């Protein structure tokens, strides 16, 4: 076996590949705070592992080939092979199998997460407008309205099915709470709903995620998830708008 001293460039490429993979595995999603988010997290992990495996295989093959078959000044042309049916069928089949698996699991998670009940425990009307949010609890008539200078706080109970009715009267916004691993667009003329069950008490940042004009970046809100008892107490303490 002849020795193949590695070229610096090729080694640096492999090193880069390794570092990127490690970083990819290290950077995972926020700790989810909803039942639905937990499922998204598991699905994400499946995709991440699949992507990492594919990356290591494909990047490894590229790296190995450019090191092993670099030009070392031979005068002969390499064999001019240009096809191999068995190989080609294999590499059509492998990604196909992976896609079928990923789709099947995706479909199960999606159908579970998107399934909506007709009798949610709590209904909240979410109105996006340029450039703030208004949250209404229709059952109790409580309204929390943000202004450009004060960020509204959306108080929600844990362990209840919450139905968000998403309403816009101007442009498209998107109701996004990163810790819930979900967003849903708030579209004028479209009756959109999002149902979630929070399973972790805490305070979470929320923000409009669909560019909605000049002060889009200031369309922030906060979600405070509390126990059902605390939620009932909070709701009772709020001033009611007279209908």
């Amino acid at each position, binding site marked *: 076996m002849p020795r193949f001293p590695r070229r610096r460039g090729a080694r640096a*490429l492999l090193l*880069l590949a390794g570092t*990127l993979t490690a*970083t*990819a595995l290290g*950077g995972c999603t*926020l700790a989810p705070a909803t039942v639905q988010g937990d499922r*998204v997290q598991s*699905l*994400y992990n499946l*995709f991440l592992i699949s992507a990492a495996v594919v*990356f290591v295989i*494909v*990047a490894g*093959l*590229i790296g190995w*080939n450019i090191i092993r*078959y*670099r*030009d070392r000044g031979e005068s002969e042309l*390499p064999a*001019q*092979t*240009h096809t191999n049916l068995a*190989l*080609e069928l294999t*590499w059509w089949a492998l990604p196909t199998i992976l*896609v079928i698996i*990923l*789709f099947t699991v*995706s*479909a199960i998670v*999606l159908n579970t*997460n998107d399934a909506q009940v007709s009798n949610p425990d709590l209904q909240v009307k979410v109105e996006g407008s340029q450039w703030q949010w208004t949250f209404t609890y229709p059952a109790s008539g409580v309204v929390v309205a943000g202004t450009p200078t004060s960020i509204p706080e959306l108080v929600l109970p844990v362990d209840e099915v919450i139905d968000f009715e998403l309403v816009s009267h*101007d442009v*498209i916004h998107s109701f*996004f709470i*990163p*810790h819930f*691993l979900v*967003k849903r*667009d708030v*579209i*004028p*003329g*479209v009756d*959109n*709903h*999002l149902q979630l069950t929070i399973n972790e008490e805490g305070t979470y*940042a929320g*923000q409009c*995620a*669909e*560019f*909605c*004009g*000049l002060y*889009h*970046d*200031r369309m922030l809100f906060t979600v405070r998830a509390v126990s059902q008892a605390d939620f009932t107490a909070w709701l009772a303490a709020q001033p009611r708008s007279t209908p």
Partner: protein
Amino acid sequence: MTTAELEGPRVGTDHAGQRAGIVDYLTTTDHKRIGLLYLFTGIGFFLISGMLAMFMRAELTVPGLQFMDEATYNELFTMHGTGMIFFFASPVFFGFANYFLPLQIGAPDVAFPRLNALTYWLALSGGLIAFSGFFVGGAASFGWTGYAPLSSEIFSPNTGTNLWIVGLIFSGSSGILGAVNFVATVFTMRAPGMTMFRLPIFTWNVLVTALLVMLTFPVLTSALVMLFLDRTLGAHFFDPAAGGSAILWQHLFWFFGHPEVYILILPFFGIVTEIIPVFSRKPIFGYRAFVFATLLIGVLSYSVWAHHMFATGVVDNLFFSITSLTIAIPTGVKFFNWIATMFRGRIRFDTPMLFCIGFLFMFLIGGLTGPFLASPAIDYAVTDTYFVVAHFHYVLLGGSVFAAFAGFYFWLPKMTGRRMDERLGRIHFWTMLIGMNVTFFPMHILGLDGMPRRVADYPASAGWTGLNEIITAGSVVVAFSVLVFGWNLVWNIFLGHGAPAGDDPWEGYSLEWATTSPPPHHNFTHLPPIRSERPVFDARMAARAAAREAAEVARGPASG
């Protein structure tokens, strides 16, 4: 003048050494000159749009608004996207295709040379019109996607928006005409012996791309006309309050917009597929399967548009999920074709090949984050965040732009007769590779952390500051790498200091290497016989065999 005394041709000279003047370029119908016009127009808009991105990075480095207000920032990201997609990537595709498609099929020009000139001038006008918004009180500021109803006359009343629409209509019309021209050229202008399955892969990919353009640009152009009617004549196509639909715009836009992604990547797949075989000294592995994969991507690209709309909640998410995941299969297959081409080859690492290897790694990362976005449940979490920004910059900067630079280093010697400097090329490659990863890799993490795209500012409490500082530092390295390329281009090509390229500096395969650098008017004085997809390779082998035989004949009497 010392530069004029240097030997060999300079950029802008034809084969006879006659220097072409400005009037020659303004009035030309020659596909090579039009190609050069397109390429340098593309580079110009790349520099402008890149500069807008640098301003954005400056603003985002730390929380708070330091350099500009939101209004300016919103114009910057809108015109950065618009410029890069419509006025950089498309012109560079049209430039390379214009210059090399006729050469690769052994034709003297494209099928409709005057239409070709019109196509270019429409494209340039479109770019100038869209960007002129900066000078009339503010450019468009609703993102390159122009979502309704934000783009209506109520929410975006400025003139810049109308200029954006008109500029894009020019660009769309130009694209349609150019695509018709390329398709007609491939079908009617091939040299004798150049059958469809002997077309170079670049030409195949240009053909499929042109078909995509022909079928999708009319949709965009129509949608823009509808938007223009909404704004100027009160047509209400996209006004939900008057019975129109905001979602309709998204359907029309993405029905164009997703095939557009393939329009922006397939030609660059083609460039990479020209370069990897030449520098591995092997033919492309699995030619027919590669062409089939390209066609399959083209067809599938029409069925995936609404994966951009999963979070709207009004499309059939599962249908668009399976079609979007499926398109990963033919794309993945191409990787194996490229790898198998290098396998047991003899790989040379000249700058064009370095950029192709960079392309393979970067596009691999960009490709692997695609399936996340094709799975609706995950997409709900990461869409419209920096995760998406990272994904499409790995695809378009790591993919298309790396491949475009590979194409420049590979073909500039043919177009100008001068070689680029290899040492500067390597500096350009390594700084760009490192800079782009430092810039865009952390964006995945920012996106997973919930930082939305298209925000001028973010709260200090969000914890995104550290990564944003790293990203800005990375973007400075990318900008530096582009300057290195610019210097290489100016010094070696424009000022003519580069070594003369000769007809065939890389031992190429396709017909452009069978003529002079730059090629004469109407391209060829004679053509080698075309009996495979590598006619110049065949001719080189035949010449070597003949030389060996002649040497043996000469030696014959002495030994016998």
